[in-house]
């Protein structure tokens, strides 16, 4: 895959604490997802459950470049983004279990994680439908001179939708500070990219809007981090939108309901050799930045966080029935 070369760790300009935190976040996401799969199998989680396994480097690398006031808006495969943005895993798990303590009071479920206080503005389930929302958020940022950058994450399948086209054109016309991040995991549901898109390199789709674009290895958290940092800088400077194609792969099915009849095990196994967590951990070790003790501590911390999240979620109350009638209309 011709992707931008990996920033040598020493050259990444990141301190050890930050780097270990990346590993911590990626592991936490992976374990959160595996636990969710288990709870789904046990019937504790229902509805559609889209897991992020394999794509962790994208969320962690990209979202690490945002500053506090920046905004994040994503599609439905959103657990990883929420955790990378620092949302409370207890309340995230509670949302999956449909509890009152969930990040959306149990009303949204897996596809609709949201935390206004952290600028995580969803978690949207209509493919590509959130892209013009990102443009609107960018418009507001410019209009109110907030210098907020908006990171909008979507998949390869979304690029074939009319929303994508209208949003990118308007983003360029209005010069909004939006970074469009396309996670090209090679499939939209069960459809391979080449079966749904006339071109297989997503960056080519930014050309007709004159939006600068870069393609990056999505299995390399530092490469994603570096490319996104550049894009965010571009947007914050007032130079308008930027397009990133993050080439990655989802290790699990599209959703837990997916029989996975459309790709063969060999392909999956091959990609698993490029597990972003394994790769990054190895690199940290090579660079002498991760001792066995440190690794063990990170493993333990992340395990505990997930265990605690499940406990919190299971002990949380269901939403009261009166909640059904709340928040239908806002009063002035």
């Amino acid at each position: 895959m011709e992707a931008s070369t990996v920033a040598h760790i020493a050259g990444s300009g990141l301190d050890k604490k930050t780097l270990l935190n990346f590993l911590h976040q990626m592991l936490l996401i992976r374990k959160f997802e595996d636990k969710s799969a288990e709870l789904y199998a046990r019937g504790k989680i229902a509805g559609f459950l889209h897991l992020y396994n394999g794509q962790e480097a994208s969320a962690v690398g990209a979202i690490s470049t945002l500053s506090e006031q920046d905004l994040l808006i994503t599609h439905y495969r959103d657990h990883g983004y929420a955790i990378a943005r620092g949302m409370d895993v207890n309340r995230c798990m509670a949302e999956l279990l449909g509890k009152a303590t969930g990040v959306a009071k149990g009303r949204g479920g897996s596809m609709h994680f949201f935390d206004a206080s952290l600028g995580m503005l969803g978690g949207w389930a209509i493919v590509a439908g959130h892209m013009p929302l990102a443009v609107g958020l960018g418009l507001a940022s410019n209009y109110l001179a907030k210098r907020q950058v908006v990171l909008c994450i979507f998949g390869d399948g979304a690029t074939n939708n009319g929303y994508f086209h209208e949003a990118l054109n308007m983003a360029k016309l209005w010069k909004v500070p939006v970074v469009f991040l396309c996670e090209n995991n090679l499939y939209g549901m069960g459809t391979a990219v080449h079966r749904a898109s006339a071109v297989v390199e997503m960056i080519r789709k930014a050309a007709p809007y004159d939006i600068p674009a870069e393609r990056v290895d999505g299995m390399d958290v530092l490469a994603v981090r570096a490319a996104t940092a550049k894009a965010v800088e571009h947007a914050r400077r007032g130079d308008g939108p930027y397009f990133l194609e993050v080439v990655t792969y989802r290790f699990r099915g599209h959703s837990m309901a997916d029989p996975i009849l459309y790709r063969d095990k060999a392909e999956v196994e091959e990609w698993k050799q490029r597990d972003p967590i394994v790769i990054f951990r190895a690199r940290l070790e090579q660079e002498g930045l991760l001792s066995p003790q440190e690794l063990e501590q990170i493993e333990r911390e992340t395990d505990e966080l997930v265990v605690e999240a499940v406990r919190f979620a299971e002990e949380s109350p269901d939403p009261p029935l009166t909640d059904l009638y709340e928040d239908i209309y806002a009063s002035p």
Partner: protein
Amino acid sequence: MPMITYREALNQALREEMARDERVLIFGEDVVAYGGAYGVTSNLVKEFGEKRVMDTPIAELGIGGTAVGAAMGGLRPVAELMTINFALLASDAIINHAAKVLHMFGGQMSVPLVFRMVGGGGAQLASTHSQSLEPMFAHVPGIKVVMPATPADAKGLLKSAIRDENPVLFIEHALLYRVRGEVPEGEYLIPLGKAEVKREGSDITLVAYSRSTLVALEAADRLSQEGIEAEVVDLRTLRPLDIETVLTSVRKTNRAVTVEEAWRTYGIGAEVASRIQEEAFDYLDAPIRRVAGVEVPLPYAKNLEQAAIPDAGRVVEAVKQLFARTAA
């Protein structure tokens, strides 16, 4: 009070709200130099500049979605979708996005925005440009749907819509823009969700909205010459629906006819009639009749189009049938 047109009243409401609140901005197709396909936004750019009055591409999906995003970002957009026929292309943004934000995300954020558009037929624009699709949108909880019939209501309701914390579909009527009426100057607000008795009468209740209200009023005048005094209730807002005002009237008149341009089946009158018979069953001396648009794609030819749109004659006829029925 000054006499101005429905169009001028809308333009005035927009100007006043933009002057009052910096966060209010307008965007849509040709709203700047063109002043909007129907001239409602004309000259606003001169006063507020292109930062607050922005043209968009012909991109209804984009306009719909950017309005939702802008509202989430702290603005109070008034997005023009030109016509309700094109609003179908924004229906996903309106129904799956705008209408869901507040509840689906746990009440963390509301989306105060207004989608302005023209609806209705009668201008020989043929079947894709003459529809009255308000029943489709009024069906959806989470949004409000407003359809003013007079210049004064146009101003008072649009100002309230812009100040409302929720997504509001504001539907104007192509044949009303030139209609003149008295409109209070300056601060003049009409609450959303309140119907109004536009004419008092004791014998029958005519329930209408938008241009059909004028049709009902004309019918009422004719009926009055034949000794039938009709009360005309203008719904003004289709969601939330103010059924109380309708019921109060029907409990007095014991009869009702609904008037609308929309297609009859699954239309606005269906809901009104159902509510009346549910909640005022014992007051009814006769079935509720509906005068509605003929169920066809509206044709271009004037004679055909006119035959498809309710007029006072058809309303008078429906009312007389009701009285004939009960007399018999």
